């Protein structure tokens, strides 16, 4: 009932909006490919403001904020709560977590898709709702979604430190490690057949690490695994860097 109620609210503000949600097989590790609008609302600043005006609870919910003016090398967005910052596009999740969407959008494949399968070569490139709305994402099992979301939340946490310590080489390095993890996880998601063929299992090792000790500080645990030479996760990521060479065909709209 709540779901149908939400649709009615949204239809008032978004014309021509339609989505279909279908269950997928739990055995499908890669998940079902969807356009982002099937899993989230993509809003301009005004549309987001209208959404908040219609539903006060919107201001308490997490969503993904994307910078309209991309800066090369920086995080293109992140999870936010409350009012949308100026020069932003909001991606409001419908049935998945904001961090999962952020993971998809801010990782390497997401960036490639945002910019026509090219790396963002310009210092500042404007993106808009129309471009974001055409992106392809994956609707994955909840367990996987949580693992991806955790990677993104760790990336964001370290980015917040890094942001203030741009001269600190150690923080840059730590941020680089987590960002690399997110990128490779996302690559595996999009290019799953290629990774499987090469015998590379990033998500599996990431999940195993998260399940190891639920009481431990996740950032420390992740960074230890990403720096320890004997760590399976670290070696799988290295293997991906060594062997995975041509992912373009897999990352398509």
């Amino acid at each position, binding site marked *: 009932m709540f779901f149908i109620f939400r649709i009615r609210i949204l239809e008032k503000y978004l014309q021509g909006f339609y989505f279909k949600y279908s269950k997928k097989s739990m055995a499908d590790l890669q998940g079902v490919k969807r356009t982002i609008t099937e899993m989230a609302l993509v809003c301009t600043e005004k549309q987001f403001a209208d959404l908040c005006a219609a539903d006060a609870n919107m201001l308490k919910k997490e969503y993904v904020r994307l910078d309209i003016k991309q800066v090369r090398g920086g995080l293109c967005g992140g999870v936010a709560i409350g009012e949308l910052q100026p020069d932003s596009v909001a991606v409001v999740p419908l049935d998945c977590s904001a961090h999962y969407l952020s993971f998809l959008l801010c990782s390497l494949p997401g960036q490639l898709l945002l910019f026509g399968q090219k790396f963002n070569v310009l210092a500042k490139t404007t993106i808009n709702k129309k471009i974001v709305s055409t992106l392809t994402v994956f609707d994955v099992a909840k367990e996987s979604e949580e693992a991806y979301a955790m990677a993104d939340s760790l990336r964001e946490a370290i980015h917040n430190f890094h942001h203030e310590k741009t001269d600190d*080489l150690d923080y840059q390095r730590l941020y680089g*490690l987590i960002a690399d993890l997110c990128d490779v996880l996302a690559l595996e998601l999009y290019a799953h057949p290629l990774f499987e063929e090469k015998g590379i299992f990033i998500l599996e090792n990431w999940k195993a690490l998260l399940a190891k000790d639920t009481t431990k500080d996740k950032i420390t645990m992740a960074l230890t695994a990403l720096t320890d030479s004997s760590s399976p996760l670290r070696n799988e990521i290295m293997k991906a860097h060594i062997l995975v060479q041509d992912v373009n065909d897999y990352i398509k709209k």
Partner: protein
Amino acid sequence: MTIENFKFFLEPFVIEPKGKHVLMYGENGSGKSSIYWAAYTHFQSCLKQTNDAGKYFKKDHSDNLVNLYDTRNRRSGIEIEFVKPETLQTRSYTDGSWAINTNADDFVRLSTFASDFMNYKFLSAIFDFKNSRPVDLFKIFEDEIFPFIPLGAPRYDLDGTVTSETSVEQWWRYIESCYYTTGVLNRRSSGGVFVHDEKWQAYQNLIADFNRRLQNLLTDIANEANTKLREQKMPVSVKLTLEKVQFDKKVPFSTRSYDGDFYPPQIILTAQLLDSNGNPVSPMEIKHPRSFFNEAKLTRMALALRLAIFDRKYQGDDCAKVIFVDDLLISLDMSNRLMVVRELLNYANRYQMFIFTHDRTFYDLIHDSIAQRNASNEWCYYEMYAIDEQVSVGQIPEPWIKMKQDYMQQARSFFSDYEYHASANSLRKECEKQLLRLFPHNWTIFPKADGTVSVLNLNGLDQKLNQFYERFGTERIFTPNIDQYRSRILNPASHNDSKAKVFRSELILAIDEISQFEKINKLRLSDENNVSTREFVMEMNDGSKHVIIEFVPLEEWYKLEYEGNVYYEDIEVKVSSHTGFNPGTDIIKVRKLWKDVCRFMGYTDFAVFPPMETLIRDKNTGVLLRDLLVV
């Protein structure tokens, strides 16, 4: 590995270590470095396009490495066969004029990124700088390291297309080529000034990405190196700072002018002194380590960095992991070499090692270090020489390789050839070698009348053998008949006594008995640094009596392992405190102390005394003697 018509080898040359490590002495010009470069060429071929990989085997190519004496246009190439020890599954890969299949699957590629080739250049690079100049390691990284390390993301073109190139070298080559290749970046027609268009911006972004990723990599390496230095208790930390690649910098004091130049990067090595807590003594970095540190410390820092680079490599189990070392230490003195050898040999349990050297002393040093680790059986030893063209069959310089046998192997080999005297002679040398290994050092020397010290021969060593076994509390003598063999076989053979008969059957028994020494593993529990300092506790408690005795060793402490049994050395210790039982003296043998305590606790039958190794523990860590890690 088979090398054919490549560098020094005209005829097919095969080296087959069968999974063992290789230590090779090769005189200059004998071809040992050709083996190193053959392996390097083979491994690296998987990172190149076929044409580029094949150029070394084409005689008409300017970069060819075909043997100079090839007049018949023979085929040229290198084949390597890899064997998985658990299943004996084999894989063969060829890099040659007739075929290149190192790219047929992912195995060689993974092996390339998991393996390493080390020579003297990296270590000596630290020393090659004038005292007043900063230590810039970029060139050495570019030549030796970058081809084998992924940068962490695939490179992209200036138009944003993702490529399949991932190594640091590939990124760097592309960045250089963009600047130096005409037409890639747009210039104004007037004077060559670069147009600040999309391509210019894309190039700046690519450079920024490269700088950021490379700095992260260098920070990673430095952190790993510092971990190693801490483990060695070196009071110094190293830092690698990237002086970034820059392009088209703004002209100083100008708002709109750019210089159009390309500034290659630098990798600057600096250091900091640390206090006993591992904190920097001063916030200032030592910018000229060459001026500040002696050769030993510089060597340790350089080695820590080089091994840190190696430790950051891929360590999966689905490929070969090999270290090739070619004359790593030619610039170092003996004490530094020993330190480097110890560090290197620590990798032998995880990697297959090929160590090449032209320095006989260094060869012997490694050989002895391996023997001290009781690992001789895991190595093949080779000697390589060049046969001069005047005496060689084909009238061209040829390699000659000999597999070096240890004395026991020689003894068996001579025996098989019915050379009994020679066999007995080798057996004597083997016996001497083993006793020198097993005995405490001060047992093996004696002072001469002229004040010098000499090493005991077999006769002198043999007299102490029973004392040696007693010292380790073994009632059973592993080699009960050595004295007989010494007097009947080993001595006559070494004195070239042709009248003394060496009987085959007796020699067989002597070979069998002396080969038992090889099986005795001597492991150190506590070294010379811990004498009089490392505290142990012997404790027994049966509810009614509770004895706690603290002591320190007054000697190095060893244990022997033989056929699944462990025997602990009966060393002298100094009692520092006692509760519940008074040993009666400060200085006492540890086994006597143990027996006295057991009797005090009420044990009468020696056979049921609780084992000493379960009653003694390291006071600091609480680890039982039985479980102490050897040093």
